[in-house]
């Protein structure tokens, strides 16, 4: 026999999951949200999404190929996800040059500076988004209204997001019941007919994405459910204590980026805890921080900051929260 036998340590078969597989799964789960954004914001959202995705992939390629002189990893799809998630939390009239800058920051600083996929402590898309938010606050807080499909990119009429309305109204001393007349109905909120960043408006599309992710077992329920439940409980308590000053839980869930954050950003593999117990703790902390920032902070929305802050705590959570080892519970008898 002239052919050499192969020897390797066990196991000798492998599952079907691969990194690109999982990444493309997330992209598929994002399709409803992308479609919804195009439906509501038209060309603006098409431009924002395509620019962000293309520039993210391009920057990953260029930096890896020429600056780091490593093998490029654009085919694993993680750069596409970064671009998509970044674009989904931008307003539809965001200038193209700044989107490119945001992608560069997300990929270059948020991801590759730390050693690329698997080593970044913070979610790169959120790093990019927070960078843009801090650097260009004016452009990041003018939200075009969702008006159905439209062809022009820069829309003159901008409006406030529901959360903005509430925040500023409360600042002026209005009561919630009065402010609720100014914001869209729950039905509109659910289907996404409101001002906001392109990806976060349509709750129904995001929930469809969540269902897909759970069905394909790409993520587990722990993070999204614990974030959303915490927000519901926390805002519910505030609401019950003082309904004049606090919006109800349903409003909080449907408005702003909680769903997008809880389903797609907090669940990012690299930057979330490894154990289910850790995931639940992480989710609860994100929920609490979000509500605290929304209600008591100076920004109307806080999901991004909450997730980034908790990203920083993930190594600590991983160190202290261990899975339940086999043999820990000893039954007598």
């Amino acid at each position, binding site marked *: 026999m002239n052919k*050499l*036998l*192969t*020897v*390797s*340590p066990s196991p000798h078969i492998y599952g079907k999951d691969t990194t690109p597989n999982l990444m493309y799964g997330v992209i598929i789960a994002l399709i409803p949200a992308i479609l919804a954004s195009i439906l509501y914001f038209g060309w603006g959202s098409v431009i924002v999404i395509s620019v962000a995705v293309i520039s993210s992939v391009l920057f990953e390629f260029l930096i890896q190929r020429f600056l780091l002189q490593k093998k490029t990893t654009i085919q694993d799809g993680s750069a596409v996800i970064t671009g998509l998630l970044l674009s989904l939390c931008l307003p539809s009239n965001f200038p193209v040059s700044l989107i490119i800058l945001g992608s560069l920051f997300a990929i270059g600083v948020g991801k590759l500076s730390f050693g690329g996929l698997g080593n970044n402590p913070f979610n790169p898309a959120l790093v990019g988004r927070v960078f843009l938010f801090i650097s260009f606050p004016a452009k990041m807080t003018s939200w075009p209204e969702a008006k159905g499909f439209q062809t022009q990119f820069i829309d003159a009429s901008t409006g406030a997001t529901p959360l903005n309305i509430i925040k500023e109204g409360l600042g002026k001393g209005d009561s919630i019941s009065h402010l609720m007349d100014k914001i869209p109905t729950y039905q509109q909120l659910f289907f996404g007919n409101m001002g906001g960043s392109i990806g976060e408006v349509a709750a129904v599309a995001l929930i469809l994405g969540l269902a897909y992710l759970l069905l394909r077992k790409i993520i587990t329920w722990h993070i999204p459910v614990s974030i959303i439940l915490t927000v519901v409980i926390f805002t519910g308590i505030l609401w019950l204590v003082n309904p004049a000053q606090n919006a109800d839980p349903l409003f909080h869930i449907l408005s702003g980026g909680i769903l997008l954050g809880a389903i797609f950003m907090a669940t990012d593999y690299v930057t979330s805890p490894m154990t289910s117990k850790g995931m639940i703790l992480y989710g609860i902390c994100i929920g609490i921080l979000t509500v605290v920032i929304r209600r008591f902070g100076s920004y109307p929305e806080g999901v991004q900051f909450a997730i980034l802050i908790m990203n920083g705590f993930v190594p600590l959570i991983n160190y202290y929260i261990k899975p339940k080892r086999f043999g820990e519970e000893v039954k007598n008898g």
Partner: protein
Amino acid sequence: MSSILITILFLSSIGIVAAIILYLFAQKFKVLENPIIYDVEDALPAANCGGCGYPGCRNFAEACVNSDSLDDLYCPVGGQETMDIVANLLGKEAKQTDPRVAVIRCSGSFKNRPRTNHYDGASSCAVASALYVGDTDCPVGCLNMDDCVEVCEFEAIYMNRKTGLPVVIDEKCTACGACVKACPRDIIELRKRNKKDRQIFVSCINKEKGGIATKYCSVACIGCTKCFKVCEFEAIIMGNNLAFIDSDMCALCRRCVPECPTDAILEINFQPVRTKTDKENKTASDKISEKVKADIKE
């Protein structure tokens, strides 16, 4: 002018009070640690390689200060020079030790050692060695998966991809022994450093009988004792079908080299090239050391 006076009065009194307080504290909490530890630590190379057997240079310094004699303590990186300084600092005798260098005692290159199967696991000698015998039938030969290269703090070992054997860059090797510990096959040996880094050693540690050994590897030591017979310095020890040249005894006379029927005895950094395997190894290592030198110059 009053402001000047106030400043002077105020600051000076603070100075005096502070000095008194400091003095009292210094009396109360006298330093317990021997300050000479710092001096010893300063004299060490601060590589923290662990070659001395202690976790770091600081621990080694403590050990030097606390022990009665320096006989068991040796810093392989700093070498004799450093140990002399340390001994001087402590007023103790440093044991005279020769500088050493690592050598790879395997010549089982791809050409010399036929592969009998193909390994497809994690790229680590330790993993492969724990799993099975290796790509060839030789149970002690080099597994060529870079464990020694990765562990070297001084970039003194690299893997020659053509032969599949690691090569030690003599100039950079500090004989810290990290590779010796890392090698699951115990191929690497620390030998006495000779003039111009010359070295003669048996490049095989296979203890099988000659017939079996040569089946695995064409340059295996077959324990024929030819070299043993020719050596005038009693530097060659035979045992378990294997010859071993004691580097402390060897006079580098090179008489044993041509005797070896399987070319298992290697000579490094000697003038003319003699044997086939030697050529292969030598030219490769020479090229690299030249390249390294060029790199340094840049």
